């Protein structure tokens, strides 16, 4: 424990001790939460599996996702149920692992290729939100004063709106497309990252090592990007991983409503939305993309939870 300093320095000493305490606890807590570690490992496993599927989508499917199979595959019918000969399906029917959709496309191929879309959507949307949120949070936290007030009140107003409703209005204003849906979900998520960044900037910027860097003549930009930012990154990674889960869900929801991905793109949300009217006659068109979508979100949620418990035991929610 460092000896208490005089005056303002006193608080710094306490905070520094707090940081030391946190660091020494990280590994111990990580080891202790075996159950949650298992979560992170299961999450990583699921996501690894999905990434492999996305990368090798063309190799593990027979037909392209957009190809209409009438005349290509003899006997292919619209909205045909799954048929695998090994599982007792009559030999005279064509084989489709997940059936066909109403446009006689291979549902399996569409579900597999959907992994590409959803993984890309998740990373791109959250990446965009983190960039802008981080910038806003850094400026607000570092500048303080009225700049801080203006930025954070603007963020508060964004937070007042139910996220999906705000996203729906933004998409309508911009036009219906996957990229606009991502943009809308990204914008709605900015305040989360701005708040996290600001909070960690505020807690780091008064510490001794930052004061020392400043005394050594480090520029503001250097202080922000070399000293403060690296120390704010942990909570951002955790929130970002969980944020990807939310972004995948929300973009799929917009696509489900017809506001995001447009046909014929194989996107799980829009596939479910377009075929939801056939729930009782062709449930496989809902069940398979539904499972794929839930699995993706589940993977990111598990990984995010595991990371949070491992990296930041004090945010133990």
């Amino acid at each position, binding site marked *: 424990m460092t000896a208490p300093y005089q005056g303002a320095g006193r608080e710094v000493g306490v905070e520094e001790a707090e940081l030391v305490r946190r660091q020494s606890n990280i590994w111990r807590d990580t080891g202790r939460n075996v159950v949650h570690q298992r979560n992170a490992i299961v999450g990583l496993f699921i996501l690894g599996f999905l990434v492999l599927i996305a990368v090798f989508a063309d190799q593990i499917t027979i037909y392209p996702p957009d190809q209409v199979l009438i005349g290509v595959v003899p006997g292919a019918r619209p909205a045909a149920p799954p048929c695998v000969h090994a599982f007792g399906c009559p030999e005279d029917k064509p084989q489709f692992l997940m059936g066909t959709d109403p446009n006689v496309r291979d549902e399996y191929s569409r579900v597999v290729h959907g992994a590409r879309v959803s993984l890309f959507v998740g990373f791109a949307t959250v990446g965009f939100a983190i960039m802008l949120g981080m910038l806003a949070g850094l400026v607000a936290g570092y500048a303080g004063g009225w700049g801080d007030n203006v930025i954070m009140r603007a963020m508060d107003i964004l937070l007042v*709106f139910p996220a999906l*409703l705000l996203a729906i209005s*933004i998409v*309508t204003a911009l036009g219906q497309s996957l990229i606009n849906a991502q943009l809308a979900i990204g914008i709605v998520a900015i305040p989360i990252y701005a708040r996290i960044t600001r909070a960690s900037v505020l807690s780091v910027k008064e510490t001794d090592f930052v004061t020392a860097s400043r005394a050594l003549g480090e520029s503001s930009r250097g202080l922000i990007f070399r000293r403060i930012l690296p120390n704010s990154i942990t909570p951002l990674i955790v929130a970002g991983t969980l944020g990807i889960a939310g972004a995948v869900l929300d973009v799929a*929801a917009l696509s489900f409503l017809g506001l995001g991905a447009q046909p014929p793109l194989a996107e799980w949300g829009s596939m479910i*939305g377009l075929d939801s009217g056939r*729930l009782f006659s062709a*449930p496989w068109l809902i*069940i398979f993309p539904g499972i794929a979508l839930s699995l993706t979100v589940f993977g990111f949620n598990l990984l995010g939870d595991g990371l949070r418990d491992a990296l930041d035991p004090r945010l133990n929610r």
Partner: protein
Amino acid sequence: MSRYIIRRLLLTIPVLAGILILVFFLSHILPGSQCRALIGERATDAMCADFDHLHGLDLPVYQQFVNYVAGLAQGDLGASVKTSQPVTTLLIERLPVTIELSFYALLFAVPLGVLLGIVSASRRNSSMDVVTMAGANLGVSVPIFVLGLMLAFVFSYLLKGTVLWLPPSGRLTPGLTITPLVVSWGLEDLKGPLRNIIDFFSNIYTFNALITAQWVIFVDAFRHLILPAIALGTIPLAIIARITRSSLLDVLGLDYIRTARAKGLSDKAVVRHHALPNSMLPVVTIFGLQVGALLGGAVLTETIFNLSGVGRAVSESIASRDYAVVQGFVVVIAIGYMFVNLAVDISYAFLDPRIRLQ
């Protein structure tokens, strides 16, 4: 305490102004002319000029904004450009549907979530805990529209003909009608705000049926709400269970809990009287945030289960460029959400005396 509440109330003014400005300008940058969206491609420029003039759309945007706020201050939310119905009338029709749905979703989510959280925390790392938390993780991962469709598939299709069958859409079985409260009470001639308020509550079907003892209707309306409420309530349920568990675990690790145990109190008494009250603060916070999420989820739930609530009204009127309706609904939703958060903040002060003193 009252100073805290007053300060908190004053803080809502700038947020309210921000909401109004954002909603107004957002709905005015929607591309495409309202006139052409409504009349169609055949609309001539002269027709559109008349249309714009009639609805005040030819005024400068700032002038339209001033008119809008002035109307709002007198309780006038404008009228639908499409159907000429006042937005207030639409609200009285649609808002009760969403409120009823959200109420049952929360009724399902909050008590069950808190209970599961408590059980998990007090038997940490037991198989019960692991299963509950895995279930909670799964619960937040299944999209509302997937869950809703799956529920409809299982309960309305697979279980058809059994006692477990539940209706997949609408609010009442076709053929059944509910008597409005004004009719039950013989107040058909009533006008003005009181009439609006009575009509509003009248449209909360289960409430109306309950107080006027229309039991067949009550059961039918309730059965129609079960699947949507579960679909909408599952994510909050999972989140509340997780928060309750972790917050309770945090509190159970504190010194005063050890003291209570050292006094010889039973585990049950320690949790119930000492730990639980102090662990509810984060749960209340999350509750407030979840109300906002519920409104978003309501759009999806109402679409799947064919309920004509606020969520669907907003997405439909955005599609048909009916600005007035979009503005009216979003403003009311945002203000309602703001007051929920205000109530949450005030309840902090009751739950935690330290906040009052700051």
